[in-house]
């Protein structure tokens, strides 16, 4: 007899493994939540609350780690790591509802975190395209109409060339064309809305007339987004995650279009000067969550929002790699995840290769992103990355 380890990350795998050894069907339902374990991180609890959570979790056979000073209340606040099976965690949530010290709110947070993490987001409709998340990875093809973008410098400034490049990307498997007029390359100077307006809407108009694929407008400026939507863009991609232009959320709400919120630390002009985090994933998630709140207040439907951790936007090489490795943690937001890693500096630094020689590096990062939960990828090399995505999907999404 040889024992072995089975990887079980979700309830359906737990169920099918149990059924495979002939477990009773009713029993399987009861046992499945005991087969899946999670570690939850909660921030800034009062010591009394933290101590109660620890005590309750211990009583259910789980565990919770607090800051050392929590025990004698010598710290003002403590973060908390809770370890347990889904069964124990849901028991904990039920129990915390009965306590004081703000613990009913903790119970609600616990439940929403666990639900979001394992839920597959509902489909999003862009123009006539359905993005049915979980079924496959969707491809966003990058179309820059800017003289200084880091990857396609000058190549697609001419509108005919841009349109024909977009058509080629669609033929190669792009589901969405992401068109941008402002370079967000590290150190890039900001351009005026006027300049952007000169470049982008005419391109969108042509493209919308000549192709069926939905067009996304990559901009941080509300005015540009508004004109782009009027010209036929069906989606907004805001690299500031609604943090730069206060009018952006209103424009998106009025357009009723799906929107991508990205994390960025700093501004493109200075973002790479000294990126600094005390809790990288936590801060990225908090920033995106703030964007979701801004969106909600402006009347954007939560169901229309996609999130993007912003690889290369105010992050060191190591920080970018850590986000790619721990990408799944973004699932806690309950929204589809877009990853844009194509040809980026992190790949150049790891492989020591220039921007026109990063295809394999991009492929590796794309494949891993999908394995770690990406629902959409934003890429330049659509033909190649569609294949990478399709192959990765076949493995990761096997059902």
């Amino acid at each position, binding site marked *: 007899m040889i024992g072995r380890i089975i990887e079980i990350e979700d309830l359906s795998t737990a169920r099918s493994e149990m059924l495979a050894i002939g477990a009773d069907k009713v029993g399987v339902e009861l046992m499945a939540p005991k087969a899946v374990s999670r570690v939850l991180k909660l921030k800034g609890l009062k010591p009394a609350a933290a101590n109660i959570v620890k005590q309750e979790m211990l009583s259910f056979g789980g565990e919770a780690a607090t800051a050392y000073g929590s025990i004698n209340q010598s710290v003002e606040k403590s973060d908390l790591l809770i370890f347990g099976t889904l069964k124990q965690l849901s028991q904990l949530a039920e129990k915390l509802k009965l306590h004081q010290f703000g613990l009913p709110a903790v119970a609600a947070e616990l439940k929403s975190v666990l639900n979001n993490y394992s839920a597959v987001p509902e489909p999003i409709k862009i123009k006539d395209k359905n993005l049915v998340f979980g079924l496959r990875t969707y491809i966003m093809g990058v179309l820059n109409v800017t003289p200084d973008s880091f990857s396609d410098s000058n190549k697609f400034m001419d509108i005919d060339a841009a349109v024909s490049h977009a058509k080629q990307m669609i033929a190669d498997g792009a589901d969405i064309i992401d068109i941008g007029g402002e370079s967000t390359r590290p150190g890039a100077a900001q351009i005026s809305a006027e300049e952007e307006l000169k470049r982008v809407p005419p391109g969108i108009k042509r493209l919308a007339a000549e192709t069926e694929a939905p067009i996304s407008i990559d901009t941080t400026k509300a005015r540009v987004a508004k004109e782009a939507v009027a010209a036929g863009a069906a989606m907004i991609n805001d690299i500031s995650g609604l943090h730069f232009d206060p009018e952006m959320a209103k424009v998106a709400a009025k357009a009723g279009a799906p929107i991508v919120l990205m994390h960025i630390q700093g501004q493109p002009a200075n973002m790479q000067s000294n990126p600094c985090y005390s809790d990288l994933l936590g801060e990225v998630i908090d920033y995106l969550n703030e964007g979701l709140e801004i969106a909600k207040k402006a009347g954007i439907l939560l169901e229309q929002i996609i999130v993007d951790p912003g690889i290369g936007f105010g992050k060191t090489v190591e920080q970018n790699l850590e986000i790619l490795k721990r990408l799944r943690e973004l699932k806690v937001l309950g929204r589809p995840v877009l990853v844009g890693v194509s040809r980026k500096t992190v790949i150049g630094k790891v492989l020591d290769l220039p921007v026109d020689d990063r295809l394999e590096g991009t492929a590796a990062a794309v494949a891993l992103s999908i394995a770690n939960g990406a629902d959409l990828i934003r890429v330049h090399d659509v033909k190649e990355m569609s294949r990478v995505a399709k192959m990765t999907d076949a493995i990761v999404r096997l*059902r």
Partner: protein
Amino acid sequence: MAKKKKKVVKVTKKKAAKAGKKGKGKKTEKKSGFTAVYLGLGSNVGDREEYIEQAIFLMEKNPNIEVIKRSANHETEPEGGGSQPPFINATVAIKTKLRPHKLLDVCQEIETTLGREREIEWGPRTIDIDILLYGGEIVSDDKLQIPHPLMHERLFVLKPLKEIAPQVIHPILEKTIEALFDERKAELGEKYDDELPGFKEIKGGGYDDYERW
């Protein structure tokens, strides 16, 4: 999830009375202890095969539905010809706790989720989902008829259904799907040609692919 299930049970009990008489026991296909329900899918606009895949995926995602088998995709000229583009048709076998009317609601919800907004009746269909057979049950009211009243005349239903359920018996006509298919094919005589659109099996989906269940 547990909460959701409870709600469903309640609804189905209420609907069960309405759902029509059960067929005789022998007509209810019992395969490893469940009643098989067969659905027909069709799409004739945009990326038709993708819409079919999306519809099947959304069924799998529903906690009350388990997709157990699917046919290959078949390309079909729309009935009456005209200017409509050809359809892609497929059938799936599912296992479900949902009673027929509740299942109809789920199918219509998926149609709405995937459908285009400017839908006109009898116009091009993004995705169309019909309940063809619900075990051996017969349902007939103004909302729902099971078996689907036209299924025995439609090769675009019978052919993909024959693939996954040849021996299943039509509870009113009391014939197997295979027999109904052969009959309809014979009626069409020389007009039937495997290579013609309408009868042609096309790539994508695929019975074998789904045999992993």
